[in-house]
């Protein structure tokens, strides 16, 4: 076994499940994990986000059976019943396992033509895009993945959209699940993946569980993958997700992540622009309160000329919440005419809230345009006073300003269906963290022609 004790955190929370793994890829991942351990604060990439909440638990594999009622309720509450989303094909996982009875086509909506779907469990293959040897959480996923979805869109097919929902249904026992998803788009294909992670409130109080998904996205020449993610898991949850995207020439991976839930969350994206004129957007927003920690980490590699990368992140932090943004842009020597932009902004609404930001630019090409910036501030007193002087009560004025700050980045996401999900989730989170709207039905955008 291991001669040297790992430098990182102990694997004890998972140890019982790591023994006796035989599949060679999984076995190698376990070996890697045993060598390095779970990342501790001295690992540069995990300096600001500590995995302490995982310690002291023994995470068991979640049972395959679940209580249908709370899961059904969680789905109903999170997905609007009408509008575009209701008629969008959906794939539902409960505790990391695909639930065919809750998914298309069983729910009456067919998967789009030209899209192939397969469960990971049907033929567990690990996509080469992921790098378990570099990311311990991907190694953990590789070792313990039991299910997930595998989607491929045939060349030239415009597949519209698919909703991917993860419902956690944890009870009194700490469980973890490590779904493995992959999406591949043939040349010229397009798809919007609308991802939603929620918890169903079954047990009393906050159930402890750990959600550790890995998603790989293979975007071929001229294809476009749009990816919207809303993470609103319950207190007690730890959500550590890793996304890998490889974007070929003229392809695009356009993503938006909205982080609202979990005690501890990280959305980590590794995007590689591997062909000329490819584009990647890693936009996102977080609205956190209490003692939540939310981390958005990205590593964007420009490995071909004439590519574009865009990152606009906005954080609203109340109470003792802490936001983390780490953004690395790596421009290879070949990647001339790179156009990179990165902006991280935070609104701190309490003296105890905190944002940690670490931008990193590593540029080896000489003809590039890369800018990055960050702002941190409180609500603007003049703006608050302006609203109040027009009769708007203070609490409502605060909500209007916070919402405006976040809507400016949500506006980067144009698709109506994904936007509906973002707006619904954000509205609920604003009511919880900032204060209710004074007048029901007076949401932004309502006054129109």
């Amino acid at each position: 076994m291991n001669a040297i004790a790992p430098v990182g955190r102990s694997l004890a929370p998972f140890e019982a499940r790591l023994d006796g793994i035989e599949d060679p890829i999984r076995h190698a991942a376990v070996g890697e994990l045993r060598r390095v351990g779970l990342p501790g604060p001295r690992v540069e990439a995990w300096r600001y986000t500590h995995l302490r909440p995982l310690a002291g638990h023994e995470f068991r594999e979640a049972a395959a059976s679940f209580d249908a009622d709370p899961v059904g309720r969680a789905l109903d509450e999170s997905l609007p019943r009408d509008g575009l989303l209701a008629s969008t094909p959906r794939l539902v996982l409960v505790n990391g396992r695909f639930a065919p009875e809750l998914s298309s086509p069983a729910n009456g909506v067919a998967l789009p033509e030209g899209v192939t779907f397969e469960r990971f469990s049907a033929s567990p293959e690990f996509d080469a895009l992921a790098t378990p040897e570099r990311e311990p959480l991907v190694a953990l996923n590789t070792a313990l993945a039991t299910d997930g979805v595998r989607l491929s869109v045939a060349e030239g097919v415009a597949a519209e959209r698919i909703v991917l929902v993860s419902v956690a249904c944890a009870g009194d026992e700490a469980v973890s699940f490590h779904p493995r998803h992959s999406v591949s788009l043939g040349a010229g294909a397009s798809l919007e993946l609308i991802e939603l992670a929620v918890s169903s409130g079954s047990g009393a109080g906050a159930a402890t569980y750990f959600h550790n998904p890995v998603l790989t996205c293979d975007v071929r020449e001229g294809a476009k993958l749009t990816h919207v993610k809303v993470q609103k898991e319950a207190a007690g949850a730890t959500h550590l997700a890793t996304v890998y995207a490889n974007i070929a020439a003229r392809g695009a991976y356009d993503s938006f992540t909205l982080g609202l839930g979990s005690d501890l969350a990280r959305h980590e994206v590794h995007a590689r622009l591997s062909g000329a004129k490819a584009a990647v957007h890693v936009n996102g927003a977080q609205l956190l309160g209490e003692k939540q920690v939310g981390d958005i980490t990205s590593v964007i590699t420009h490995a071909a000329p004439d590519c574009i990368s865009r990152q606009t992140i906005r954080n609203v932090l109340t109470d003792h919440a802490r936001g983390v943004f780490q953004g690395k842009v790596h421009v290879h020597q070949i990647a001339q005419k790179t156009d990179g932009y990165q902006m991280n902004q935070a609104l701190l609404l309490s003296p105890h809230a905190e944002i940690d930001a670490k931008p990193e630019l590593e540029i080896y090409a000489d003809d590039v345009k890369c800018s990055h910036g960050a702002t941190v501030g409180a609500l603007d007193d003049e703006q608050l006073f302006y609203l109040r002087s027009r009769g708007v009560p203070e609490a409502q004025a605060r909500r209007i300003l916070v919402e405006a700050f976040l809507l400016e980045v949500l506006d980067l996401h144009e698709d109506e269906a994904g936007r509906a999900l973002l707006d619904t989730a954000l509205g609920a989170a604003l009511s919880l963290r900032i204060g209710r709207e004074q007048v029901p039905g007076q949401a932004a955008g309502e006054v129109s022609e």
Partner: protein
Amino acid sequence: MSDFLNISGLHARIDADGAPKEILRGVDLVIPPGEVHAIMGPNGSGKSTLSYVLAGREDYEVTSGAVSFKGQDLLAMEPEERAAAGVFLAFQAPIELPGVNNANFLRTAVNAVRRARGDAELDAVGFLKTVRAATKKLSMSDEMLKRNVNVGFSGGEKKRNEVLQMTMLQPSLAILDETDSGLDVDALRIVADGVNALRSPTFSALVITHHQRLLDYLNPDRVHVMARGRIVHSGGAELAKEIDVQGYASFLAEAA
């Protein structure tokens, strides 16, 4: 004594980088109902500060004096309560609200004020009808309603947007802080029309200005000169014309 607006012995200061700076040094001013008063005075004399203190801006600390408005202690009220009570301030430099749609902002404000005054709120249709009528009267394009509040507005557009808000909120005391500055002749006329449209025995206006022109349209009942944080001289409409010709030198000497 009138029971409309009564400012007496008002002192206010601001914390300027740790050191208190006294700006208002004993303002006395009475505005009876139904009247339009103008305040003129050199730059930095405290006109905007007075308007902010009346509207309830918290940065300014009132150290002594009192303000009663329709029999209520204005200084004890929150800014939103003052708005509900009928105070409206058109800002010298209107604030930009990125991400806040102008129409939504107006509707939120109008309904907040209506709610507080015990009036029925306007639904989307009722609001649109009212706001359309108002923009038409002010020769404003509806396009400005779709934009974010004051963001990217020209100086004149911002001022018009203030007048639109005033029209929609139906105040009983309108304080216009240099709403006429930077306006073209037509816009000036519109501002004056906006104020004149509100005129009634229960409406008063306090118009801060550097120019005679707006006052020609408004025909104020009284003109006051403010210098070094005090009202140092008051007179009729003819005072504005005098100032236009002579400047403030004689009043400053008086105040010193």
